[in-house]
C-alpha cells in the first residue's frame, strides 16, 4: 500500500483544491484534464480591487456559514454580534456547519455565502480556492473598515495574512490537550497518558487524524504536520498497538463519558474541560484537570473569511467587526472558554480559573514552544487513510 499512498496521492490537497474549485466535486478525470490546461495562478496576487457600493445600497441579507453556537443563537450566542444588531442591521442568516472538511467540500462544490469561519489548518486551501472561471472564491478584508483591528493580537492576525493580504480575521483560538479525572488518576503531565497501560479501558481518543500528530509528539517526530511515509506508518503502528487500551473514540464531545465515569482521561479541547468542571461551579461538575503536557499542547485558531462575490461587502465588515469587539470577547471567553484575539479584554471580567488554566494573560502562549499551532497538512488524505486503518484495527 505504501507505493499507492506514495505516488498517486502525493499531489496533495492543495492541487486538489484548485481543481475541485474548478470542477465541482465528483467530476470525472476526463473533464478535469480538459480544464487543467486553463488553470490560472492562485488568488492573492494582484487581483484588481473592485469598487463596492456604499453600505446604504447593499441589501444587508448576510449569509454566514458558521459553526453551531457561533452566532445563530442556539446558546444565547447571538450576543457575539450585538454591536451589529445595535446598529440596526438586519439579522444575518446562519447556515450551520459542524465539520471543517465537510464545510470546505461544500464550498468547493459550488455553494456560496458572504462569510465563512474556517480554522487555520485549512486557511491556505480557502485562499487557493477558485471557481469554474478560475477566479478566486475568497477575497481579502479591508482592515481599515474594521475598527477593532488594531486591538487584535498581531501574531494571530499574522497567521491570517497571505501575500500581504488579510484573508482571515482571526477571532477565536484554543488548545487541544489531555483532560483527566483528578479524583481517579494522577498521571504525569504528558500526552503519554492517552497511551498508558495503567489506564487500560479508561481512555477516550478523538476520532480524528490528529491522533497521529499526538503520537508524533510523543515519539519525537520533528514535523508532525508533514510526516514522511515511514514516520506516518510508524505512528499508525504505534496507535494500532495502543488502541486496545482505548474505550471510545469521541466525535462530538468526550465530556459525557468523562463525567459519567466511563473514561478517566480523554483528548480534549478546553471547552470540554470547562463543561466537565461545571463551568467553574464544582457542584455542577467533576474534579478534572486540563493538562499542560511536557511535549506541549496543540493550539488552534479560526478566523472569518470573505467571499469574493459578496454583495454585502460593508455589512460583512461591520458584522465581523462586532464579533471582534471587547464585549464579544468577554462573552466568548466566559461561556465557551475559548480564547479571543482582542487583546484589550479586561481579564478581571473573566473567571480566574480560565485565565490560569489557559494562560490568557500571556499573548505568546499560542507560539512555539509553548504550544504547537495547528498547521496545514499537505497530505491530509494520507493521514486520514492511516487513521481509518487504526480505527478499523481496533
Amino acid at each position, binding site marked *: 500500500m505504501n507505493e499507492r499512498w506514495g505516488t498517486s496521492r502525493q499531489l496533495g490537497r492543495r492541487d486538489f483544491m484548485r481543481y475541485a474549485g474548478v470542477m465541482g466535486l465528483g467530476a470525472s478525470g476526463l473533464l478535469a484534464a480538459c480544464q487543467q490546461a486553463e488553470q490560472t495562478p492562485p488568488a492573492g496576487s494582484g487581483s484588481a480591487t473592485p469598487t463596492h457600493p456604499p453600505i446604504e445600497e447593499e441589501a444587508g441579507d448576510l449569509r454566514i456559514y458558521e459553526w453551531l453556537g457561533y452566532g445563530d443563537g442556539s446558546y444565547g450566542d447571538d450576543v457575539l454580534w450585538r454591536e451589529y444588531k445595535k446598529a440596526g442591521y438586519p439579522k444575518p442568516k446562519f447556515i450551520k456547519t459542524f465539520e471543517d472538511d465537510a464545510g470546505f467540500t461544500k464550498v468547493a462544490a459550488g455553494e456560496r455565502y458572504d462569510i465563512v469561519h474556517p480554522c487555520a489548518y485549512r486557511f491556505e486551501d480557502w485562499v487557493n480556492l477558485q471557481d469554474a472561471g478560475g477566479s478566486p472564491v475568497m477575497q481579502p478584508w479591508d482592515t481599515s473598515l474594521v475598527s477593532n483591528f488594531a486591538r487584535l493580537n498581531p501574531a494571530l492576525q499574522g497567521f491570517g495574512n497571505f501575500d500581504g493580504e488579510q484573508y482571515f480575521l482571526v477571532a477565536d483560538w484554543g488548545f487541544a490537550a489531555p483532560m483527566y479525572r483528578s479524583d481517579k488518576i494522577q498521571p504525569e503531565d504528558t500526552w503519554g497518558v492517552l497511551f498508558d497501560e495503567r489506564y487500560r479501558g479508561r481512555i477516550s481518543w478523538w476520532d480524528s487524524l490528529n491522533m497521529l500528530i499526538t503520537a508524533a509528539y510523543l515519539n519525537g517526530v520533528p514535523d508532525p504536520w508533514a510526516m514522511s511515509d515511514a514516520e506516518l506508518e510508524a505512528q499508525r503502528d504505534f496507535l494500532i498497538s495502543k488502541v486496545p487500551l482505548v474505550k471510545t473514540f469521541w466525535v462530538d464531545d468526550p465530556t459525557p463519558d468523562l463525567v459519567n465515569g466511563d473514561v478517566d482521561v480523554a483528548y480534549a479541547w478546553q471547552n470540554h474541560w470547562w463543561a466537565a468542571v461545571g463551568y467553574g461551579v464544582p457542584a455542577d461538575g467533576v474534579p478534572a484537570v486540563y493538562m499542560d503536557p511536557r511535549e506541549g499542547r496543540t493550539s488552534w485558531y479560526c478566523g472569518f473569511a470573505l467571499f469574493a462575490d459578496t454583495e454585502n461587502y460593508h455589512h460583512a465588515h461591520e458584522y465581523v467587526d462586532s464579533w471582534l469587539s471587547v464585549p464579544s470577547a468577554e462573552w466568548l471567553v466566559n461561556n465557551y472558554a475559548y480564547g479571543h484575539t482582542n487583546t484589550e479584554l479586561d481579564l478581571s471580567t473573566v473567571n480566574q480559573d480560565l485565565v490560569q488554566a489557559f494562560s490568557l494573560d500571556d499573548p505568546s502562549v499560542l507560539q512555539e514552544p509553548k504550544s504547537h499551532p495547528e498547521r496545514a497538512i499537505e497530505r491530509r488524505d494520507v493521514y*486520514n487513510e492511516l487513521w481509518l486503518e487504526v480505527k478499523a484495527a481496533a
Partner: protein
Amino acid sequence: MAETAPDVEGATRDSSPARSWPGTLGLLAAPVLWLAVFFLIPLLVVAGYSVGILSLFPTDAGANLDDWSRFLRGDSVYMALFWKSIRMSLTVSLIVVILAYPLGYFLALVAGKRKYVLLLLIIVPFLTSYLLRVLAWRVILGSEGVINSFLYSAGLREPGDPIAWLIYSQFTVILVLVYVWVPFVALPIFVTLENLDSSMLEAGNDLGANRWRVFWRVTFPLSLPGVAAAFVFVFIPTIGEFVTPSLVGGTKGTMFGNAIQSLFTAGLDWQIGSVLALFLVAVVGILMLISGRFLRLRNLETG
C-alpha cells in the same frame, strides 16, 4: 399514474387468464422507474467510484482495480472487519431467533383472543425514537449506570471498579441489536405458526404423540420457513449496521458499516468506501438469492 389507469382497466376487462402486456408494463412502470432512479443508477455510480472511473479528487489515479484487489486479497484491515461484522450479526441473528420463537409461538398458539393486543404491546416501544432506545442502554450499562451502581451498593463490587465490558464493547452492540430486533422477528414466526393447519397437530395428538413430540415432529418443521425468513430478516440489515455500534460500541464494537461511513465522510476516500459498500451489497444479494430459493423449496415441500 393517470397514464396507467386505462391499461389497468384493459387488463381487468380482459377475461382471459393471461395478463395483457401493456397492462402489466403500465403497472410496473412506476416501481421499475423508482428502482432504476434510486437504486440501480446510484449503484452504478458507486461501482464507477470503486474502480476509479469516477473520482472525488481529480488528482486520483484514474481507472484502476487496486482497491478491489487489495481488499479481496485481504491486504487491508477491512476484510478482517468484515468477518468480525459477519460473526457479530450471525450471533445477533441466532440469539434473536431463539428469543423470538417462543414469543411468536405464545402469540400464535397460546395467547388466544388476546394475541393482537399483545402483539400491539410488543410494538409499542417502537413509538419511541430509535436513538433514544439505544441511548437508554448507556444509562443502564454505563460505568456508573443502573447495573454497576446496584453492584456497588450491594457490595458485590468495589465502587470505581465497574464491569468494563457492559458498555462500549461487542457485547453491548450485540445486546442492543438483539433488543431492537426481537419484536420485528417475532412477526414472521408468528405468521407462520398462525397459518399452521391445526388438524395436523390434532392428528399428531390422536396418533398418541405427547405435546413435546408433536412440537418437534410437526410444529417446528412446519415453522422452519418462518424461522429462516426471520433469520435473514435480522442478518441482512445488521451486517451493514453502523448507528448502534457508533453509539454503544466504543472502539471494540466497530463494524463494517462504520468503516464505510468513515471512508465516505471524514476519510474522503470514496474509492475504498465504494469497494466496501458494493461488496456488502453483493454479499447481501447472494444471501437473499440463497434464502429465497430455500424458502420457496420449503414452501413447496410443506405446501
